């Protein structure tokens, strides 16, 4: 009995000890995460004039950057070749600065504890799962760049806002991140197959429907999408269709991103949803779509089992190993415009930003000035296989040909280019679920609107 009591006491004591130990552990971690490796003095650039320094790349080379400077970059479809190169170049231009790179496919998760702990890296590339610019802005994680960007010049002395192909997204009128990539959603087909079968390449919605009728009659399914990830069909069909139906005015999408109820209730949204219904009711949508992921849908497209696929311009690069011989990608940013109407390009981008709690914001701003230059633009196109968001002729660069084509499309005056828009994550999910439900006749366009409005209202509270 006594023995039992002793053990019970021992047990309780151990639990208490363990609990207090875990408490200590977490405190220590917090302490550790709060003590930055860079000393405070290092984060303030020494304003020493270096008269002997060559008047080279840095326009404000009066300020010599020093201390630690950390860059977080996600490695995904665009790879890390460009990041390695630009960081090396920046380091060479600023020998006194200790540039630290934290990159990788899982970096967003790995760095999360540091963002939560108030000790983020100085500079962040917002791409990949786990980072969402709108959420980061709402969480107060990003530095307000509104004032700085107004007259910020790049290393070549050009005003950054002047050379951006697409302007930065505004959150309540403020700028926190700048788009680095300029990619586009759109519709792909196989030019080879179309030429062989005598099918006309689509230029507007009517021609898209007409050729789809022919394709269906010939025994091929006209259209496949990625039902498991409905942002492909939303990005390539729904949003451009909304803009076309809204007289090419994309502010309706920006209002949707701001959770304004009247934007979702606009007739343009219903008109666009009815275009999806038209595709559905004519039997153009491959039934397999609803359950498959992007790889499966892309494979079926590459096997010519389906004639059209909504996707992003990165697809040819992504599937390069599986593209059969004679397969020649045809691409148009949108097919939902009326005959003679402008093509609408819904851009897909990845942005860069400075952490609000970063230790070396001067270096981060200098890095922005370094990155947004024409030299880096063509280097980006060449090394990442995607068009950069910097205006400039990349036709002479070594960028892949479809990247050059895309760049041409996106700079054409007859194209309505939708700038980067990030929807609230809850609203975005509601739109994706509702579109899926619409494609399998589970709901009507009106119900789509009601569903999404309900979520937008809740979020706007």
């Amino acid at each position, binding site marked *: 009995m006594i*023995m039992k009591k*002793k*053990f019970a006491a*021992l*047990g309780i004591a*151990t*639990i208490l*000890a*363990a*609990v207090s*130990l*875990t408490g200590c*552990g977490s405190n220590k971690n917090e302490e550790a995460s709060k003590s930055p490796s860079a000393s405070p003095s290092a984060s303030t650039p020494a304003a020493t004039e270096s008269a002997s320094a060559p008047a080279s790349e840095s326009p404000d080379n009066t300020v010599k950057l020093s201390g630690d400077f950390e860059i977080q970059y996600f490695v995904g479809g665009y790879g890390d070749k460009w990041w390695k190169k630009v960081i090396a170049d920046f380091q060479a231009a600023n020998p006194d600065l200790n540039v630290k790179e934290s990159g990788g496919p899982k970096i967003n998760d790995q760095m*999360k504890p540091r*963002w*939560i*702990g*108030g000790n983020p890296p100085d500079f962040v590339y917002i791409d990949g*799962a*786990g980072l*969402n610019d709108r*959420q*980061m802005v*709402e*969480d*107060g*994680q990003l530095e307000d760049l509104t004032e700085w960007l107004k007259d910020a010049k790049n290393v070549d002395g050009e005003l950054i806002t002047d050379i951006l192909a697409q302007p930065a997204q505004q959150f309540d009128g403020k700028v926190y991140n700048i788009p680095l990539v300029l990619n586009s959603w759109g519709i792909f087909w196989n030019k080879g197959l179309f030429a062989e079968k005598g099918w006309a390449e689509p230029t507007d919605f009517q021609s898209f429907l007409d050729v789809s009728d022919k394709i269906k009659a010939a025994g091929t399914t006209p259209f496949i999408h990625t*039902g*498991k990830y409905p942002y492909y069909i939303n990005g390539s069909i729904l949003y451009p269709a909304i803009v076309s139906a809204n007289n090419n005015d994309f502010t309706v999408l920006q209002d949707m991103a701001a959770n304004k109820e009247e934007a979702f209730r606009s007739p343009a949204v219903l008109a666009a949803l009815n275009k999806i219904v038209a595709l559905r009711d004519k039997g153009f949508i*491959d*039934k*397999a*779509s*609803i*359950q*498959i992921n992007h790889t*499966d849908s892309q494979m*079926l497209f590459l096997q010519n*089992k389906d004639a059209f696929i909504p996707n992003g311009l990165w697809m040819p690069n992504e599937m390069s190993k599986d593209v059969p011989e004679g397969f020649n990608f045809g691409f148009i940013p949108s097919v939902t415009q009326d005959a003679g109407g402008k093509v609408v390009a819904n851009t897909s981008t990845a942005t860069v930003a400075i952490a609000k*709690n970063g230790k070396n914001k001067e270096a981060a701003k200098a890095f922005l000035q370094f990155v947004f230059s024409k030299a880096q633009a063509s280097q980006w196109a060449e090394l990442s296989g995607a068009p950069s968001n910097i205006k400039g002729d990349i036709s002479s660069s070594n960028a892949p040909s479809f990247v050059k084509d895309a760049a041409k499309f996106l700079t054409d005056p007859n194209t309505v280019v939708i700038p980067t828009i990030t929807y609230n*994550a*809850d609203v975005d*999910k509601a739109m994706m*679920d*509702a579109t*899926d*439900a619409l494609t*399998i*006749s*589970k709901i009507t366009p009106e119900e789509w609107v009601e569903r999404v409005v309900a979520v937008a209202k809740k979020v706007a509270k």
Partner: protein
Amino acid sequence: MNSGTAKWQRNIFIASFIIPTLIFFCIFTIYPVAQGLYYSFFDWSGMSDTKTFIGFDNFKEMYHDPIVWRAIGNDYFLVAGKVVGIMVLATFFAVALTRFGFKMAGFFRSIFFIPNVISVVVIGVLWNFIYNPQIGFLNAFLSLFTKEQVTITWLGFTDHTIWMLLPPAIWAGIGFYMILLIAAIQSIPASYYEAASIEGANQWTQFHRITIPLVWEQIKVSVLNIMMTTLNGSFVIVWIMTEGGPDNSTQVMGSYLYQMAFRQYHFGYGASIGFVILILSLITTIVLQRLMRHETVEMS
């Protein structure tokens, strides 16, 4: 004095086993559970360095969230489907492989066990291919019996897609429980069956009068284990195969937790879902234990 030292040494010896385990248990189980409960009282994106205390609001919101109810329904559907499917088949196979003494028993035992050594992720991908409407095995097989090509979208029904997740889940689970029951059946003395045969009992009577009562403890453990692993672990198969779709029709609590915490940036809400999963598991365990309380039959 001597006995005191011996007692002390004994205590030290026992403590040296218990304390490290207890410490690890506290750090890796109790502490995260307590932290999860703590976060469930906050409105927190999971990324921000600030969180807002909102009391029980997350739980109140869950009560009004139709997807939560659907997810709980799907969870219990999978529990019921898996318990029935796995237990019936595992018992059947175990009896077949032990009581009828045919030559290929060892071979079949290995075959049935194979799914257990395959990762659930691989199983999910494999069954995705089986269910693929265009290039999948199932439609190709069915097309053998029809004039036209079968193009059923197995994972794309508007309402009952969750049914399609049962076959892979059952297939993946049978092996382990079959082995557990085989071991139990083999420990039943052959003389019981011999005596029953002499008394004129047929195979079926032997099965439900001898085998079932004597392996009841193992059946009970199996059912509880299937229930717990399903409530806590169906996330993997759901996430690999459907990600909760189409239109949230296959969402389970685990997948909805992930969706809310990491895709929609509601970490506090995700934590409260996690806490509900814990409570549901505990309640179900207690209920099932009571339901399956059975007079223990011991072999003498």
